[in-house]
């Protein structure tokens, strides 16, 4: 699993880094922290003034420290191992003392890009082949970044992978997963599993009905998912929602639960929230939102 954390230098980003560190602690994911700032000159030299002036370099370094601080040094998969002389068996019965530098088991990359934040975040996620883009935003108002308009919304609209928008300081009581399609990937089920563990919360699996009943395959999936979570001692509730009541359900539920929506190709949810309208969902929700793609 590879997680891309899109950050700026404001407190909601620091909050996301903490949450992603916990998530990474459970999943041992490769992680990239990406910041997008103004156009920069060469900042490679530690003494270079451009680095000191650039608003994001300090923030990114702090985030890296905060991320790594979450792990015990000895057990951290991201910790670079020291170089040592070690005896290695080079042929049968022949050992040679070699100077070995062991790298970290998992990758933690810090990237600073310049340009349009939305385009750069999406470009980084494509380059990394990310499974999840995580980003924060102000809890109050309509989920904005400081000094920029609708960045989380635009990223969520256009990302090819799953997107998690975390609203700072909102205690997540429940994760409501909306399900209406027939093909649910194991990866996305695992992702929900991780979210439940991360936030120590209950899970509500929401089945969309056409007013009368669930589609047989969706019902079969619900059953399988329920058994999967029950086997992992995760308390999972089932709730049926008519498509006609979906909007009022989301507006009511989004006040207290993290909304997780499976946005597959054939999903009704994709029709309700097509690319370009996902921002409505993110702006309107008081809680965090996870879009599974």
């Amino acid at each position, binding site marked *: 699993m590879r997680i891309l954390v899109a950050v700026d230098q404001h407190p909601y980003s620091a909050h996301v880094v903490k949450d992603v560190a916990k998530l990474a602690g459970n999943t041992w994911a490769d992680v990239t922290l990406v910041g997008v700032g103004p156009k920069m000159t060469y900042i490679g030299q530690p003494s270079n003034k451009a680095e000191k002036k650039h608003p994001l370099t300090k923030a990114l370094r702090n985030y890296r420290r905060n991320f790594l601080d979450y792990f015990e040094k000895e057990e951290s998969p991201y910790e670079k191992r020291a170089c040592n002389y070690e005896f290695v068996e080079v042929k049968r019965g022949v050992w040679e003392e070699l100077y070995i530098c062991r790298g970290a088991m998992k990758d933690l990359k810090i990237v600073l890009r310049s340009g349009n934040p939305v385009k750069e975040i999406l470009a980084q996620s494509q380059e990394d082949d990310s499974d999840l883009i995580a980003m924060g935003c102000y809890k109050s108002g309509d989920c904005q970044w400081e000094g920029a308009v609708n960045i989380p919304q635009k990223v969520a609209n256009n990302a090819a992978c799953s997107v998690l928008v975390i609203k700072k300081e909102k205690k997540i009581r429940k994760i409501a997963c909306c399900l209406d399609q027939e093909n649910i990937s194991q990866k996305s089920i695992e992702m929900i599993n991780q979210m439940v563990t991360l936030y120590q919360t209950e899970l509500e699996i*929401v*089945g969309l009905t056409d007013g009368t009943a*669930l589609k047989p395959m969706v*019902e079969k999936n*619900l*059953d399988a998912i*329920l058994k999967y979570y*029950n086997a992992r001692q995760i308390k999972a*509730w*089932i*709730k*049926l*929602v*008519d498509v006609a*009541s979906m909007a009022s*359900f989301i507006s009511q539920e989004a006040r207290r639960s993290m909304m997780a929506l499976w946005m597959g190709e054939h999903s009704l949810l994709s029709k309700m929230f097509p690319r370009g309208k996902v921002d409505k969902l993110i702006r309107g929700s008081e809680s965090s939102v996870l879009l599974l793609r």
Partner: protein
Amino acid sequence: MLKTLVYLNADLASSIALRYACQLTHVIKMKLHTVHVEEPDHDGYAPGTGWVRRTWEDAMLKTGEFEIAQLIKAEKSSCPRLGPTKMLVGDRENEILREIQRESYDLFVEGSLHSFTPKKLYDKIHSRLYRHIPCPVIVVKNLVNLEKIALIVRDEVEYKKPVSMFLKIFSGAKLNLDLIYCKFQEPGKLSFKGQKDANGILNAIKKNLIEQDWHPEDCWTIQGAPEEIGDVLRDYGMVASLLHHSISKKSNWFQLLSHIPSPILIFWQ
């Protein structure tokens, strides 16, 4: 021993209901019987009479039997002592009603997944089956652990009836019981009062239960909107309530029952 009938269909709601009913057998002395009704086509007419009709019904039953056998097989690990399912053909509600009357069941259990809109539960409560059913009903909305149950009461209800019905089902059961008095008010003002602030009804029910050797673990009052109280009650493995068939859709009590995601046990008033 309580004679319990569980209705089965080849669906998720029934699978949950069956697993839940099996959990019940561990805490209540009860024998589970299962039934499935294979319904004719939607127009309700069976083709022909005599041999033609019997052959047609046999074919329908075989299809239903196979599906139910699959369901039972899947749940066998959690319910090893389950007997064969009685297969009937006809109108679902009429057949279940006839079966309950014929065999004098003490309790009826069926699955109905928790729904955001109250219509589904409302239609169920006002169905012909529920209007005429002679025994209490458990509507299993979700599969939950049966560690603790709640008996919810309100002001206008005569309290001796739910207590005697409760005792009939749960006598000798190994369960923790909370007695909860629900008072409705505007949303956003959810509040709780403990035993020492309990009102007359709560105290009377508690006394009544203690006389029958049932000691509620806790007695408390919840004040709030139906959806808020429903949310609090999700922590219980079952919520028992007295209910009248004529309850209106807009009444707070009905709204509360529809918001509770846990299984509800209905004693008919």
